């Protein structure tokens, strides 16, 4: 009995090697390790908080001196005006912008992206500690926090869920379905009909786009979330679903069977999801994430839903997603023409 259990266990391990599931076991810890390396570390090498100050703003000299002298905590960047400062906060070039409070003469207004974020909390804590060191009492210099992105925590997390849904359909569902049709030779049966390769690919593309759109729509209806700038939003959901569905089809063509497709899907799913979704929490991740197509999609959706931005500022991201979609669709077409791993 024990001998049989050992034989069968070894056989199952061999299968996991064969269908590449074992790579997931190796890949996920490796990926977590790399992500943790990229997340800003606490301690000696802590990333300084980048505080924007407006050149023409008459800040209280005591505050100005304190902020500038605390160079281990803050790095000060001067911006010409409030509008430019807010723009830089949105673009994550600075972490917060300090304005003079209109209500309290000595007070400051801190402009941040999100009020409830860890970063905002750390800025407030930093200022509080600084003020205590300089003045010895605990009346906050920061009298108000002005977030640039509105909405509660549910609305704030919405772009992450949307990205997750889009990637789930594209990298988990689509490659497995393509690989299944290849594995069971159904695709070859279809190719014995007068159907063109491009027609099959387009149908698969539409399937991915429809599934993503339904998932996003369902999420909005369930949560009662508004669509922000609706036209721009639909343009991005459209191009994002096109880009990722094409990507998923391409991945499906790289696999001979469903098991491989699932493994490859997860291998692509996590690196596309986590750096983008976590980029708000780490400066290092926010420099790495833009290399992935998921980042412009995530950032654009966030910008539309939370900042109500229009298409004008997002055109480069839209073009980039469209380009990635066209490129991966073309590569999938080439693989299909070559009957790759069929």
């Amino acid at each position, binding site marked *: 009995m024990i001998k049989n259990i050992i034989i069968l266990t070894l056989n199952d391990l061999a299968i996991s090697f064969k269908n590449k599931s074992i790579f997931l076991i190796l890949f996920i810890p490796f990926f977590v390790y790399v992500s943790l390396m990229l997340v800003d570390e606490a301690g000696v090498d802590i990333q300084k908080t980048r505080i924007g100050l407006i050149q023409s703003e008459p800040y209280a000299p005591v505050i100005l001196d304190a902020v500038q002298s605390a160079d281990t905590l803050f790095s000060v960047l001067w911006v010409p005006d409030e509008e430019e400062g807010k723009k830089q906060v949105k673009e994550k070039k600075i972490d917060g912008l300090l304005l003079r409070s209109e209500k309290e003469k000595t007070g400051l207004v801190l402009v941040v992206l999100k009020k409830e974020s860890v970063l905002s909390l750390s800025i407030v804590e930093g200022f509080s500690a600084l003020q205590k060191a300089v003045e010895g009492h605990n009346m906050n210099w920061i009298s108000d926090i002005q977030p640039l992105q509105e909405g509660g925590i549910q609305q704030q997390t919405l772009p992450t869920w949307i990205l997750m849904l889009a990637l789930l359909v594209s990298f988990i569902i689509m490659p497995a379905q393509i690989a299944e049709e290849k594995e*069971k030779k*159904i695709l070859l*049966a279809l*190719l014995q*009909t007068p159907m063109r390769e491009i027609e099959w690919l387009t149908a698969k593309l539409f399937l991915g786009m429809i599934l993503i759109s339904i998932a996003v729509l369902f999420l909005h209806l369930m949560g009662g979330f508004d669509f922000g700038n609706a036209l721009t939003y639909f343009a991005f959901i459209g191009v994002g679903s096109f880009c990722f569905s094409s990507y998923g089809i391409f991945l499906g063509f790289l696999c001979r069977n469903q098991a491989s497709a699932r493994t490859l899907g997860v291998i692509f799913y996590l690196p596309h999801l986590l750096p983008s979704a976590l980029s708000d929490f780490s400066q290092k991740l926010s420099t790495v994430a833009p290399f992935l197509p998921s980042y412009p999609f995530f950032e654009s959706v966030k910008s539309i839903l939370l900042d109500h931005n229009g298409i004008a500022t997002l055109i480069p991201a839209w073009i980039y997603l469209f380009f990635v979609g066209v490129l991966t669709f073309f590569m999938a077409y080439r693989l299909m023409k*070559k009957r790759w791993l069929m």
Partner: protein
Amino acid sequence: MQIKIQQLTKIYKEKRGLLPIDLEVEEGELIALIGHNGAGKSTLLKLLTGWLIPDRGQVFVDGINLKNRLAVVRKIGFVPETPNLFDFFTVGYNLRLFARLFQVPFQRIEEILKAFNLLPFRNNKIQVLSKGLKQRVSIGRSLLADPPVLLFDEPTSGIDFDMTKEIYRLLTEFHRSGKTIIFTSHRPEEIKTLATRIIVLHQGCLVFDGSPQTYFQSEIHEKLYQ
């Protein structure tokens, strides 16, 4: 002639496959393609259906190059060894889907269901059918567009005696109706019963091409089944 094969070659990474082959097939022939496993039989059939892309060489069907897939797709029907149908759907759904793609009227489905005794199973899902029934649906599907050439890869493999007899009957009927048929087989009695011409492949090379009488008297047959 109906099929002309010129220097057709397909080599896999494992060095197996099909070495350059030249072959001509006349209309109405019933050809048995035989040889050991790995001889290149299935590879040749898959090349003729466009499932595989050849490394070199050309195939012409009624004078049309096989590279022009859309032009020859209605001329060749292929029945693989393992039926490749949509398992989660019914017999009727599978046939309707392919009828739509072939742009043939649904009346043709009724004819197929009747001819293959599949009427009682039209609403059954493919996954609950026996292999023999699946094979009948698969043959029926390949006939939707009424192609003049039919290719069968081991059509009776894993099928019981009654269903095997039924498939022999169907092959004979197709042959009588003037269709050109090429099938692969490992069964001498099957080859003897059905074939009008025998082609033997060995390690990717064509080693015999002749009538069943000549083949069964030749050394090749003895070597093949020793």
